[in-house]
């Protein structure tokens, strides 16, 4: 095992326990996991309880206290990956290494698991291996990856083309067509003044692009007005909603605009520090973003007297998440930034007054910040003049699934679903999931509806399902996603998401009953009414929508009985069949036999 100088590592992070998630990334990169003895030592060096560190390790999907393979493979398990054949490709790799899903091969070479959407839906199926992402998987690519792993070729020596991320931008508008020189937005904001910059943002009508649509100007104004000696600006780049990858495009090719937006925000609200919370599934963005921040520091746009503005001392650091969808919720994200389990806080108080380290904090989505930079330079009209009265500006959509041209499409708000489908070359479309699993499931008769906060809001996902697709399988994938990503804080979401996933799996595999359908609606109602945050509140929505809009797909799967016994004698023999490597007819019980 590689030895690790934990003392030096902790010292590099200033002995700061809020850096715990970043420290655990370093440990995992070196050792593949976080051994129990390391947890004990880290806790002692950081001055926190051992159980706290163990709890943080146990919370995040990308950390483990149990040994993992030297090559840790995670297949993206979004429905679009699944539709593109990810399960068969995963099985191919499992067979190649004779290992079970979620387990480590006996020689410790490889562990293979599934993970929630990795944000490469326009070029899936995708996987992560250690800290690298690979898209466009085919049987040939899987074969190549297996050979490289078997040969224990270090990742830096793998062929670079394996890691290529294609750029698929199909429609550009205000944001994607913008060209901004570094510092232009900040200079305009400085010329205008702090209060006027916020007023301009309010005038633009810009609403948060992460999904909830809170007015960005009001958020900045509240943070600026909150008392306190220090303030923070946080860029929410934890793009975890399955089917969404527009922030990936913005951070890969328009990062200057996003960082400009953060700098403008910091100037306007009086923040000294900025934090980018980047999801761990985008490891290919870390180095380019660090380089960009270094360039801006060298150009005097970050650091002391940023942009040449006396008294404006502002710098930005990058934090990498660790595989937890709930951290896209702004208060859970702040908990994670503080090195804790990502549990949404009780609100009020809101982050604008009590955010990072209990200080006033602006948390904005990547796309919101990009738009804010443009508003600072070009004025409110750049957003106000397009879109609809209640949804000003443009929206980046991540189009994936059954379309001829998947990729990024930027439209003015108010575009119809049908228009997007036509532009993307979708034919015989059965359904569209707008905004990801927590969004809105639309059937064909609703394709005249518009993408806008007042009609069909969207954080950016646009997943298309044609008539070949089984909507029960689609919704089952979503139900499993929510069960996997529930933080577990509150009863309704922790238990409800798992019960719902079990019922959906029963129905999808043909052993569900009418009672399951009734209970699904009941569980969804409990989650919606009583959950602590938006994850639980929306977890039942796709199931409820599918039951309403695609009921025949469910009914034809049900056994006609009201109740199907939970004990299935034939299923109970499955372990015996597996142990004896038999699956012939004689190894099964006849349906009709007692």
């Amino acid at each position: 095992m590689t030895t690790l100088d934990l003392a030096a590592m902790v010292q590099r992070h200033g002995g700061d326990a809020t850096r715990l998630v970043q420290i655990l990334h370093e440990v995992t990169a070196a050792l593949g996991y976080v051994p129990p003895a390391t947890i004990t030592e880290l806790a002692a060096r950081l001055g926190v309880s051992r159980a706290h560190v163990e709890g943080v390790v146990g919370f995040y999907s990308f950390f483990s206290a149990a040994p993992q393979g030297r090559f840790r493979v995670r297949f993206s398990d979004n429905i679009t990956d699944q539709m593109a054949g990810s399960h068969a490709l995963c099985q191919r790799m499992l067979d190649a290494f004779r290992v079970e899903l979620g387990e480590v091969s006996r020689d410790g070479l490889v562990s293979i698991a599934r993970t929630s959407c990795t944000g490469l839906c326009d070029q899936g199926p995708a996987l992560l291996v250690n800290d690298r992402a690979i898209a466009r998987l085919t049987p040939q690519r899987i074969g190549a990856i297996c050979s490289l792993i078997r040969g224990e070729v270090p990742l830096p020596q793998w062929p670079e083309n394996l890691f290529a991320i294609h750029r698929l931008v199909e429609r550009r508008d205000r944001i994607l067509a913008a060209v901004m020189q570094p510092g232009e937005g900040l200079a305009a904001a400085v010329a205008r003044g702090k209060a006027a910059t916020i007023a301009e943002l309010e005038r633009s009508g810009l609403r948060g692009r992460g999904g909830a649509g809170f007015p960005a100007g009001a958020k900045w104004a509240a943070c600026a007005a909150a008392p306190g000696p220090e303030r923070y600006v946080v860029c929410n780049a934890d793009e975890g909603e399955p089917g969404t990858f527009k922030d990936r495009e913005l951070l890969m090719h328009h990062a200057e605009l996003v960082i400009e937006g953060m700098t403008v925000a910091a100037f306007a609200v009086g923040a000294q520090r900025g934090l980018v919370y980047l999801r761990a599934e985008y490891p290919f963005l870390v180095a380019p973003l660090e380089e960009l921040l270094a360039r801006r520091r060298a150009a005097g746009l970050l650091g002391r007297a940023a942009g040449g503005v006396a008294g404006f001392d502002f710098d930005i650091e990058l934090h990498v998440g660790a595989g937890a969808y709930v951290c896209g919720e702004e208060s859970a994200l702040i908990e994670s930034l503080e090195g804790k389990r990502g549990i949404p806080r009780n609100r009020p108080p809101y982050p604008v007054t009590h955010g990072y380290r209990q200080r006033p904090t602006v948390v904005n989505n990547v796309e919101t910040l990009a738009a804010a930079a443009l508003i600072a330079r070009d004025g409110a009209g750049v957003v106000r003049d397009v879109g609809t009265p209640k949804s000003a500006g443009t929206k980046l959509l991540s189009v994936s699934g059954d379309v001829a041209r998947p990729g990024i499409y930027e439209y003015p708000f108010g575009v119809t679903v049908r228009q997007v489908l036509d532009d993307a070359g979708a034919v015989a479309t059965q359904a569209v999931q707008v905004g990801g699993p927590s969004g809105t499931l639309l059937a064909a008769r609703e394709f005249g509806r518009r993408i806008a906060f007042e009609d069909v809001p969207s954080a950016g996902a646009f997943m298309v399902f044609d008539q070949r697709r089984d909507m029960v399988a689609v919704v089952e994938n979503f139900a499993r996603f929510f069960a996997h990503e529930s933080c577990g804080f509150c009863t309704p979401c922790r238990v409800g998401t798992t019960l719902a996933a079990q019922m959906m799996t029963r129905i999808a595999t043909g052993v569900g009953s009418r009672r399951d359908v009734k209970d699904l609606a009941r569980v969804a109602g409990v989650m919606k009414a009583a959950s602590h945050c938006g994850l639980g509140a929306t977890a039942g929505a796709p199931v409820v929508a599918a039951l309403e809009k695609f009921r025949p797909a469910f009914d034809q799967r049900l056994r006609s009985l009201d109740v199907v016994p939970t004990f299935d004698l034939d299923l109970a023999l499955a372990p015996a069949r597996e142990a004896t490597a038999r699956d012939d007819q004689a190894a099964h019980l006849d349906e009709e036999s007692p």
Partner: protein
Amino acid sequence: MTDASPPQTFQMDGHDVAFTPGQSILTAALAAGRYIPHLCFHPEFTAHGSCKVCTVKVNGQPHASCTTPARSGDVVESDTDELTQLRLNLVQFLFAEGNHFCPSCEKSGACTLQGVAYELGMTTEHYSPLFPDRPVDASHPDVLLDFNRCILCELCIRASAIHDQKHVFALSGRGITKHLIVNAESGRLADTALALSDKAMTVCPVGVILRKRQGFAVPIGERRYDHQPISAVAVGHRPKEDGHE
């Protein structure tokens, strides 16, 4: 809140409930003798609102009453069929999640989960039980931890951290795999700083943290909620004799 200021009130199920600023809907209601079913709330600790059993409707919107500040003039619904159904489902969720076998449990009759279930008229757990594998920890000479009954209320965590200053308990895992852990590399309670005199020993609302060699000191039938329902005990009606402790 001087004697001179008029009492502030909100309305709950058609009755005026007086409160002092800083009280939650739940604490104000309990102080006024009006029971709202709850599990993870304890008067000595800051409410965190995880079990959601105390959910009420405030001006028509559902909120956990333990974390919602009482506000003058609010209209609160609590004792309605809809909310009783919601709470019943949440308690059924908890029964399905853990391994709860009341007849063989040392805490039966003095268990908050069981008491609330009776209060809500629960007759079955309804949902397919998950039957989690949760080995007990009998390593400590004086204390048994039976994780099968844990409802993740975090009271022992809060008591140990805030009151005992020891951090003996914490949570690990996520979602349905979330579970109670103890502060030791071995994972064994015997290797923690837990002492019998700790506050954390006394706050478990179910039968997870048990003193050894004290089984059935109070016979079943004479325990805390055997004399009076939990709704009466919780608002301060003293039972004839306190069961269990």
